[in-house]
């Protein structure tokens, strides 16, 4: 999807190509067809094309507020209690290889609860479960 878009008023005059200071616009003439081309990595979004276009054909707003590109999709590890997404499986594998131990997949809230359940005062048989009670 191109962020550089022109409307139906573009007549292929190439003013934008001639005046682009970043060499981000180009064109090909092939088989009686002219194709206007744009390279986003070279584009400085300076707006010169929009300014010089005699046809007012350049819709610069698409270079100001663009859409998001999906870059990568990975499998996720979720909290085993509530299902909250935690991290990717690849990240988990990296952690395991770094620390040489498998951490139970828990969100911060349930990790805290699990730790609290192991606290001696909260064990069954104790008279009080309130932390800090003497």
């Amino acid at each position, binding site marked *: 999807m191109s962020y550089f878009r022109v409307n139906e008023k573009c007549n292929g005059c190439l003013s934008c190509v001639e*005046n682009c200071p970043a060499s981000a616009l180009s064109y090909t003439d092939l088989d009686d067809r002219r194709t206007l081309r744009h390279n986003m990595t070279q584009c400085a979004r300076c*707006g*010169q094309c929009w300014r010089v276009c005699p046809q007012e054909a350049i819709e*610069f*707003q698409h270079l100001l507020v663009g859409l998001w590109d999906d870059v990568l999709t990975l499998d996720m590890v979720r909290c085993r209690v509530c299902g909250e997404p935690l991290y990717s499986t690849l990240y988990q594998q990296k952690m395991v290889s770094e620390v040489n131990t498998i951490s139970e997949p828990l969100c911060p809230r349930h990790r805290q609860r699990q730790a609290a359940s192991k606290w001696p005062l909260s064990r069954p048989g104790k008279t009080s479960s309130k932390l800090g009670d003497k």
Partner: protein
Amino acid sequence: MIVGDLKPLAEIISAIEEYKQILVLGCGSCVTICLSGGEKEAEKLSRELSQIRHYGGPPPKFEVGSILRQCEEDLVLEYQTIPAGTDAILSLACGAGVQTLADAHDPLPVIPALNTTFLGASAKAGNWAEMCRGCGDCVLTFTGGICPVARCAKSLFNGPCGGSQNGSCEVGLDTPCAWAMIFYRLKRQNKLHLLEEIRALKDWRPGGAAGPRKRVRVGLGEGPN
């Protein structure tokens, strides 16, 4: 790039408290990159300024926006919508952006949220240092690519002052002496002879001493205005 720093909150509040509806406008270029005036910072500042504890009465209402560059009048007029009822803009751009907005939307008050600090560069994450003062008559050819105007505390042109000590400037040990850097770099380049050449006095007129500077690129647009 142009580097800016957020003004003290108290100063911003005293400048905006008389208004009722304010557009907090970030700028998407230099000050976004130096993490002081982009969309994120505009959102953060708006949240802070919305706190009622900062005001004697009800706080102003805030809306947040951001545009790629505030320093181009045609761009802001065409693509930056000013919400109805806005009685002031709080701009997170550099001084050029603030003034461009003020011209574009005259007589709407445009208030700076940043102090524009310097033209600088980033050698490592989170650090920016002044590199250029836009003097209009660059001498980097003769100084090993190290600017004595911007990087010497006294902007000296003929070598270090007596305050240069072991490569540091007398203003602080963490400030390197620009002329020590120049000397040692030229030495590494086998170009110390550049320091022995007699040069004409620097012309400061291109640096702003002859009034505000303009640049006209012939062949683009309608020419000088």
